[in-house]
């Protein structure tokens, strides 16, 4: 990996995070005037985690204040908000947002305390928002199916119900990690959180049993079930499993529910790397091409590539960590990162598919124009949604982990 280029990118990622935080605290998903000038709890939470990794704790706190104040009366965090915290979502439930906000809040609490947790941790902030924490936990548990002890969702990280409606692995991992995070916060505040701990452990065990396939030696994507309360779920109209490979099958280890060195995780990551590493472009695709929901053309995603690099860093495989992070550094254009990258040919294939199927929305026209007018187009690349803030936060996290592991060792 070109370390000088990586350092430049790292510094610019911090700058991008700062520049794309609205004065009210929300991190834009993409800058104002571009494709996603809203605050999405999923992207926003990762930006908070990026800010924590970059030691930008004031920015992280402001981000948390924004999101906790925007919580819906039900305890849910919506798909997206405007800069004033008004719900502007247009998609159904995405419950991983609840898990991510709680997880990020706990990471903030730990970061403020550091080695002197007892004296320095920002308990006052968590106490101020304790009611919101309780409501966020309650909302997660309201969506738990007690037959299978998993959390039900309609959308998850890909906003793609066809493969995510039911008990999906990313949503369950984030919610479970969020529940454990709420338990740790509660303990720091001397609250009784025993019931939450029991519930979190039930979900964790169920992820390891129900969302893991021993014969495939891999976590699986989803147990498709239409209704949260179907009882028994075997009779639900959707009842089936999604066993296709997905980059987020790494989520149980990524969110600390199992060790990185757990064989279930190692084998899962091997499958992801084998089936989703893009042989033509490099980088990690998010799911199989044939799912064919590849806006802008099928291709590798920067933030999933960063995410998986964390595994290789954690297990001390510097070659693979470099392969993943080095690719991200190579793909940066003027130290900026897009959502994902495709080829001209794949872009045209996607355009043909969507045009013929008559599912090309108006909002995609601007995206298409931006892809074609980007300087990389003439080099044969389609840079889709440039810049997206999320991968900048993921790069900060992944590169920080990489440096701590390999530079300080």
């Amino acid at each position, binding site marked *: 990996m070109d370390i000088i280029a990586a350092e430049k990118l790292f510094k610019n990622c911090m700058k991008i995070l700062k520049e794309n935080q609205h004065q009210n605290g929300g991190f834009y998903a993409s800058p104002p005037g571009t494709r996603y000038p809203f605050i999405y709890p999923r992207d926003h939470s990762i930006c908070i985690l990026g800010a924590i990794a970059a030691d930008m704790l004031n920015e992280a706190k402001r981000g948390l204040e924004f999101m906790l104040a925007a919580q*819906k*009366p*039900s305890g849910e965090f919506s798909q997206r908000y405007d800069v004033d915290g*008004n*719900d*502007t*979502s*247009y998609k159904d439930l995405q419950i991983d947002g609840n898990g991510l906000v709680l997880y990020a809040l706990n990471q903030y609490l730990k970061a403020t305390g550091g080695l002197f947790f007892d004296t320095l941790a920002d308990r006052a902030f968590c106490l101020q928002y304790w009611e919101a924490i309780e409501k966020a936990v309650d909302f997660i548990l309201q969506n738990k199916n007690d037959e299978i002890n998993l959390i039900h969702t309609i959308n998850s990280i890909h906003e793609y119900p066809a493969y995510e409606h039911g008990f999906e692995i990313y949503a369950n991992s984030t919610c479970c990690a969020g529940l454990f995070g709420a338990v740790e916060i509660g303990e720091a505040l001397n609250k009784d959180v025993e019931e939450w701990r029991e519930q979190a452990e039930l979900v964790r065990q169920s992820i390891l049993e129900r969302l893991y396939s021993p014969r495939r030696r891999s976590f699986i994507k989803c147990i498709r079930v239409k209704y949260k309360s179907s009882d028994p779920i075997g009779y639900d*109209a959707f009842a089936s499993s999604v066993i296709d490979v997905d980059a987020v099958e790494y989520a149980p280890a990524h969110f600390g529910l199992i060790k990185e060195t757990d064989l279930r995780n190692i084998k899962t990551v091997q499958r992801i790397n084998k089936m989703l590493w893009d042989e033509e472009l490099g980088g990690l695709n998010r799911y199989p091409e044939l799912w064919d929901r590849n806006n802008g053309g099928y291709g590798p995603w920067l933030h999933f590539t960063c995410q998986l690099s964390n595994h290789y860093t954690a297990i001390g495989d510097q070659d693979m960590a470099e392969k993943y992070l080095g690719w991200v550094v190579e793909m940066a254009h003027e130290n900026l990162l897009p959502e994902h990258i495709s080829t001209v040919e794949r872009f045209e294939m996607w355009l043909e598919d969507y045009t013929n199927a008559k599912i090309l929305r108006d*909002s995609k026209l601007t995206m298409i124009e931006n892809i074609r007018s980007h300087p990389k187009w003439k080099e044969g690349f389609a840079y889709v949604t440039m810049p997206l803030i999320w991968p900048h936060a993921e790069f900060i996290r992944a590169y920080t982990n990489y440096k701590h592991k390999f530079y300080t060792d």
Partner: protein
Amino acid sequence: MIRLGSMLPQAFMVGITELVKMVGPEKTCILLSRMGKELAETQGQGLEGVPENDLHYLPICPFADEIIRFVDLFGERPEEFQVIVKYVAEKEAGNKDKVECPAMASILCLLHNAYRKKRAEMAGFETLHLASKLSIAGAKLAYNEEAIEKAGKTKQEVDRILEKGACVFKFIKKE
């Protein structure tokens, strides 16, 4: 058996027709609006739709599929629905606050607009419902001309958005 799982929306609309027969259009309209507001309160402040300059629109009507299914089952435009539409039109004609009324393409616009309006109100915005359309052949477009005027738009501008959407509205920040 499978269809039993999706009968509730249809049962709801049968209920509306029965309610019109039992208590008349006025109370039915009040009920629809109250339901919208009550549901809005569970969801908190929010602004619906896709922004387009200073207007917002919904690309598709969230109720269209169920309305079309209902029409398929019970025939085009049940009489009771027409009673409500006529009642609202007459009531609005004499209403000095017509600008605040929904542009009603179907009876469910009453429910929907009450919901949208309440959530915007919680966010500190006034809502103008400029126009809506129903995806049924021959169905007329519905306009609130007073709302269009207050929004500073022309019917042609609204029509251009209706070509790609089902419902056009404007949020105005309250002072």
